[in-house]
């Protein structure tokens, strides 16, 4: 059996976070009463004309710059013609021959090494509305989403496994979120993806016949759908059959892809330049200004975290995986220093609380300064790290000031030497056999004594001090 290789290209539709739609002033707010956010332009009324939203252009150019694309001096909106009830004009305004940007790349770490995926093109288009199929053969159309700006990002056929596909999507999504131009939520449909998939015997230069897979609404489903589709195609070839060029839908319940339409049923979209819109030319000034406004992107941040904070890769992955998380981390480090300690705390303790509350770091009730304060209390040995971990869920959830809290609750460590001396002597007196064994050389018993002291002090004794005292009392 020959070894097969999958070749995947991804088309991502990212809904932009502009306040108004791509070609009219209607709001893009999600969840309004159906057809509330409409006007003659987006509802396709006779005589209405589109006017391009400059903010959407700015966002498109910023993504293009972030992906090292060549932004075209002149790009042209084109009409993509087809009939559907949720497409009120009878065409979508997209870009075809002259897209916004071309020839970029996305660099991403996969399994410890860096991978580059070419970006073939990025173009702008307006979203369609939503058809809602009700009971009794009735359908309804909601045009609130009609005209919301989308960027379509087309990758080269440079992705070779479902793992890489998910890594690519996560990186791209992360860039969009860093740029603050897309909510990036696959379930809500503001970050959507279709995949072109083919397989070929490893080493063969020609591509196999591809299928287009649609309807993958989460990273997990992307992985599942691609795995299924790759195996399906390999099995076909193994059985001496052919892959048919077609569009296939992923079915969540069965985990399979199913044929939706064949090549001969493919639409002829009759693209032509939209005469209602003048070609889009982006001035050098805008381009430079937008480029200056680009934030630090995930990959640079990741590299900087490795370099400046000497974090392990895994920790850098997690901390830069969300921009909010990275920002939070840096604010704590700014107050406290010790990046590795901060990183550990955030990954082990804070992430759990964030996940539990399903919130992002920026929504954390506990301010970065407060986390720094907590870490300082440990550093200053005012509380043990065990106590800190124990009280963390509560101070996190309520955003409490750690110092006040531990004082009020009496969690401060006992560092009063004379008090501890008393406890140590008590413990030794209560356990004469163990004390004798220790003196005879059974040094392991030190932890037993430590445990006893802690028990008597409800864990608040300063362990270092106890250790010192025990040694001097027990001799050696």
């Amino acid at each position, binding site marked *: 059996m020959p070894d097969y290789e999958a070749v995947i290209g991804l088309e991502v539709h990212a809904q932009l976070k502009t306040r108004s739609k791509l070609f009219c002033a209607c709001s893009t707010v999600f969840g309004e009463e159906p057809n509330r956010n409409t006007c003659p332009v987006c509802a396709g009324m006779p005589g209405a004309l589109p006017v391009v939203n400059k903010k959407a252009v700015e966002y498109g150019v910023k993504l293009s710059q972030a992906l090292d694309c060549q932004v075209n001096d002149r790009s042209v909106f084109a009409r993509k013609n087809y009939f559907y009830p949720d497409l009120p004009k009878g065409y979508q305004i997209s870009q075809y021959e002259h897209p916004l940007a071309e020839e970029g790349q996305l660099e991403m770490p996969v399994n410890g090494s860096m991978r580059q995926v070419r970006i073939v093109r990025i173009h702008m288009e307006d979203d369609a509305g939503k058809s809602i199929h009700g009971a009794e053969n009735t359908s309804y*159309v909601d045009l609130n989403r009609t005209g919301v700006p989308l960027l379509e990002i087309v990758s080269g056929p440079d992705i070779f496994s479902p793992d890489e596909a998910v890594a690519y999507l996560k990186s791209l999504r992360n860039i969009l979120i860093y740029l603050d131009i897309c909510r990036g939520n696959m379930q809500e449909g503001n970050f959507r993806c279709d995949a072109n998939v083919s397989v070929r015997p490893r080493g063969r230069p020609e591509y196999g016949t591809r299928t287009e897979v649609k309807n993958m609404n989460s990273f997990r489903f992307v992985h599942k759908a691609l795995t299924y589709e790759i195996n399906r195609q390999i099995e076909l070839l193994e059985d001496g059959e052919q892959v048919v060029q077609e569009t296939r839908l992923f079915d969540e319940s069965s985990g399979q892809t199913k044929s939706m339409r064949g090549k001969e049923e493919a639409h002829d979209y009759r693209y032509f330049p939209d005469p209602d819109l003048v070609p889009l030319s982006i001035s050098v000034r805008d381009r430079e200004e937008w480029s200056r406004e680009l934030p630090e992107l995930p990959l640079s941040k990741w590299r900087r975290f490795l370099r400046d904070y000497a974090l392990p890769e895994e920790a850098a992955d997690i901390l830069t995986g969300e921009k909010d998380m990275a920002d939070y981390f840096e604010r704590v480090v700014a107050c406290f220093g010790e990046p590795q300690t901060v990183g550990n705390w955030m990954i082990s303790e804070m992430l759990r609380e964030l996940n539990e509350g399903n919130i992002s770091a920026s929504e954390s009730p506990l301010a970065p300064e407060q986390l720094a304060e907590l870490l300082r209390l440990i550093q200053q040995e005012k509380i043990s790290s065990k106590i800190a971990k124990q009280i963390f869920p509560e101070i996190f959830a309520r955003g409490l000031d750690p110092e006040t809290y531990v004082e009020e609750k009496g969690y401060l460590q006992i560092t009063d030497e004379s008090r501890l001396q008393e406890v140590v002597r008590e413990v030794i007196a209560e356990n004469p056999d163990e004390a004798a064994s220790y003196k005879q050389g059974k040094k392991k018993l030190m932890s037993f004594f430590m445990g006893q002291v802690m028990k008597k002090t409800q864990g608040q004794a300063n362990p270092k001090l106890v250790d010192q005292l025990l040694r001097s009392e027990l001799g050696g």
Partner: protein
Amino acid sequence: MTAIYQMSLTEMSHRLQSRELGVEQAVSACLERMEATEPDIGCLLHLERETALQRAREMDAAGPDPEQPLWGVPVVIKDVLATKDVPTTCGSRMLESFVPFYDAEAVDRLKRAGAIILAKSNMDEFAMGSSTENSAFALTRNPWDTERVPGGSSGGSAASTAAGQTPLSLGTDTGGSIRQPAAFCGCVGIKPTYGRVSRFGLVAYGSSLDQAGPFARSVEDAARVLQVIAGKDAKDSTSSPEPVPDYIAALAERDDLKGIRLGLPEEYWGEGLESDVDGVCRSALHKAQELGAELVPVSLPHSPYAIAAYYIIVMAEASSNLARYDGVRYGYRDTSEKELTRMYFATRSKGFGREVQRRIVLGTYVLSAGYYDAYYKKAAQVRRLVREDYQRALQDCDLLLAPAAPGVPFRLGEKVEDPLQMYLTDIFTNPLNLTGLPGLSLPAGLGPETGLPIGLQLFGPSFGEEKLLQVAYVLEGALPDLPFPRGVDK
């Protein structure tokens, strides 16, 4: 004394402002004129009698506003321009019940200038036609000879203005739909430079070609209307920020044509002109010469290909522009069909007339995969060559001068069965829309053989409306004055 309906816009406006004439009086006179002439010419689809009278009374009560150049002036609007709360059918069954909740920008500007909308005028369905015979609702007749067509597609507006129903009307010109009916009905019509007048609310036919413009009975009147409707509109990306000059002031700047070079494109003055057109237009040329103009022969060598390119582009755009009439949200729907695709087919087969369907099918064809390069792309290249022809000719001349149509108005029904013959009646007006340049059609006199009006058209450089109006104004003074059309004044 002149009857109210016979007044020019300039005169009526002056009398309204000075309160010699009441707004209600003017509106009533126009309504009466409509009642008197409509049985003969049938150019209106919808009358706003009560709202117009009501508005007139309010305006009379409030008194004139000198800031509003069209204060109290009744107007007629081609039914392809959206009018708020007033039916806008585009002459199509598809939009028979359609009442927009917005005004076209050109209409809004007329209203803000004080004009009162009296009626919507008949037209070829979705502006597709050259005779107004493609209307789903009415047959409009030429006021000079009611057995003949008024031209099209703005035949309703042209006939209305010529017959004195109101002093002015708005039309649209995609391939001559203002200039040709203006010539056929004996009035002045302007197709402004593409981008001069906002297309917002102009129900699109060929988006890269459509322009709204005025009909009036004199150059000065037409200039006053253009002054109001021209200018940048943020709602239309293709409208131009080019400043709008003072057209009325420009009219006063010359009283002859000395130093003016008028180019005569040989392609427009050769074989194929009917003798009345040839005779009347040539005598107009003599007048121009007498006024001091220099006549220069020029050539527009790509003219033979222009009409093919024009029809490919306009049909391609139309096929996409008319896709929105699908029976889903507004307009006609065939409710007998329950399945989506069948509903689409039934709605569009019954809602659109034959000519519209023909153009949608042809336009869909030329944009299809495998044909795009041979048709649409090639036509776009020809379009560039045609534009270069005109620009080259206009480098050498101030304006170009040509007959507005090769023949006089044809008989009703004469060409309806032969679409190609019908398309060829636009041969003198189509190319200009490919170039985006402005044009003006002006009555040159009545044909000695037919007694029908003959139109002369002037082409100008981009945003050269000022020069166009100036020359037309001088020429108009030297050309024979047309009486009111005899078809309606028996």
